[in-house]
């Protein structure tokens, strides 16, 4: 995001958080949001209860059934080792959700703390924090993640840390922008005047009033975290085989494109549909909770 686009975000005053009931109403009223929510429910169900839903074990190798096209027995076909692609797609949801939820939690906690403190304190603390955020924004997301993998070595934990680090600055920027406008509100000034401590004011008065754009950002970041996890796994730097992951399945499909299209189509479709659902839910949340942020945080 350039400084100009950032200025649009900075200028957007936070809307007060509406109730969850309003969010649910909005989701139910919009068919696109309702379908997205249903898709996400299915993905969460697959992540939680994958082994109970999947028709076959993820690593059940059967070379006699290798590279079979979709059929009644194997809805999504089989891979080069005869493993059921549908089962692996279902079981890979766990890795994808785990990495994206943990990494976005890391980004949220670190970024929001940084943004709240910087925005509330102002002065040199704000300048220093925002310059650090600018430095982080100078690195493309995947490149920064790859650099972190180069330091820590590949693996699931590294993928979570790497994706968490790369999405921290966006949360810091959103939290800071909202805090700046809330800081001068009369209720915050009143709390200050009554001698409340800064950390207490931030936790009790600022955070609840900057929650709306942060909730929207969380939904959008979950979408991009899933994309980043899939990309890292595709490159062999995320979760390690034989644990199924959507990205790794796509990497394996590369060698069989002219023989087994299903190996490339279904895992990719799983990533695409999940990311699209998070993005569409994010859009709905923005429309309800933070209409002033439209287009600003794309």
């Amino acid at each position, binding site marked *: 995001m350039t*400084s100009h*686009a950032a200025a649009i975000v900075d200028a957007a005053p936070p809307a007060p958080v509406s109730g969850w009931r309003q969010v649910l109403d909005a989701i139910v009223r919009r068919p696109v949001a309702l379908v997205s929510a249903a898709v996400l429910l299915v993905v969460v169900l697959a992540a939680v209860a994958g082994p109970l839903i999947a028709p076959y074990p993820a690593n059940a190798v059967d070379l006699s059934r290798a590279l079979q096209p979709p059929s009644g027995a194997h809805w999504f076909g089989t891979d080069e080792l005869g493993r059921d692609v549908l089962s692996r797609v279902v079981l890979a949801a766990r890795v994808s959700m785990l990495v994206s939820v943990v990494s976005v939690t890391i980004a949220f906690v670190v970024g929001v703390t940084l943004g709240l403190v910087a925005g509330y304190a102002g002065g040199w603390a704000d300048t220093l924090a925002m310059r650090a955020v*600018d430095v982080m924004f100078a*690195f493309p997301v995947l490149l920064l993640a790859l650099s972190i993998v*180069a330091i820590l070595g590949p693996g699931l934990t590294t993928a979570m840390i790497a994706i968490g680090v790369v999405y921290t600055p966006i949360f810091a920027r959103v939290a800071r922008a909202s805090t700046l406008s809330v800081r001068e509100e009369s209720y915050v000034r009143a709390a200050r005047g009554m001698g409340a401590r800064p950390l207490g004011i931030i936790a009790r008065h600022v955070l609840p009033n900057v929650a709306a754009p942060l909730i929207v950002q969380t939904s959008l970041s979950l979408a991009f975290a899933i994309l980043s996890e899939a990309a890292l796994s595709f490159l062999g730097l995320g979760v390690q085989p034989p644990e199924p992951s959507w990205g790794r399945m796509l990497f394996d499909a590369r060698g069989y494109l002219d023989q087994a299209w299903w190996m490339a189509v279904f895992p990719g479709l799983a*990533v*695409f549909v999940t990311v699209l659902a998070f993005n*569409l839910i994010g859009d709905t949340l923005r429309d309800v909770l933070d209409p002033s942020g439209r*287009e600003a945080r794309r």
Partner: protein
Amino acid sequence: MVYVLRRLGHTAVVLLGVSIVVFALIQLVPGDPVRLALGTRFSQESYDALRAASGLDQPLPVQFFSFIGGALTGDLGVSFRSGQPVTSILLDRLPATLSLAFAGIVVAVIIAFPLGILAALRNGKPTDAVVRVVSQAGVSLPDFWMALLLILGLSAGAQLLPSSGYVPITDDPVEWARHVAIPAITVGLIAGSIMTRYVRSSVLEVLGADHVRTARSKGLRERIVLGRHVVRNALVPVITVGGVQLATMLGGVVVVEVVVGWPGLGRLVFDAVNQRDYPVIQGAVLLIAVMFLLINLIVDLLYARIDPRIRLS
């Protein structure tokens, strides 16, 4: 002038921060980076020679200032693997990445401008809804999946285009175009989806402006109002988004370059990460970040020149 100086100062500060992060990259590696890079079989002489060549036997402040000094003079050290200067490795890879980025941005513009303008003119109608859903879908596409699907359809299936490889544009422009088509459509489609939203909202904003109402009330034909007063003004803010997308393509197409075997900077970083060739990772990351900052600087200055309100705000 004040704006230009302020913007240059900001870029200089961020550049210093970027250099510190890139320098820290090798320092944060747990253990001895030279030992990690050499693997298990190496002689003490080759170890000592590489350690001395990389400057890692020097005290930390000396290493830092030598890194900054080297970066300013174009000396980014030598590869742990090949022993070649990092700068020459980067320069070898740069043309492939640049040519892919420019082809990608052309595809993005071809998609974004007509679709964004059309959606804005049909605001609230079914065409608008379709364009919005399609652009949302484009943003959600994993780029490497898109590349695989294109290879599946255009290469493995229809046999129209090669599935991988690279031919320099200077050697054979036609073969370059055939090889660049799949990666360029992939990155262009995703960037185009993002840009479509900006074009749409920008055109919508200008459509409601006073000068457009005045132009219409003067009795100008709709085509002239749109061409002269709406689209021209609406496209100015889109420069910013286009610049960001170009900058992103220069550094962020690692996976696409890996899928189609495109020998650019992204592929270089991927190979270097696998080989733990830290000087190459540092050099490539620094170059990409510097290009990103410079493109953003140019775009912001260009934008401020076109729209004086930015300078005054």
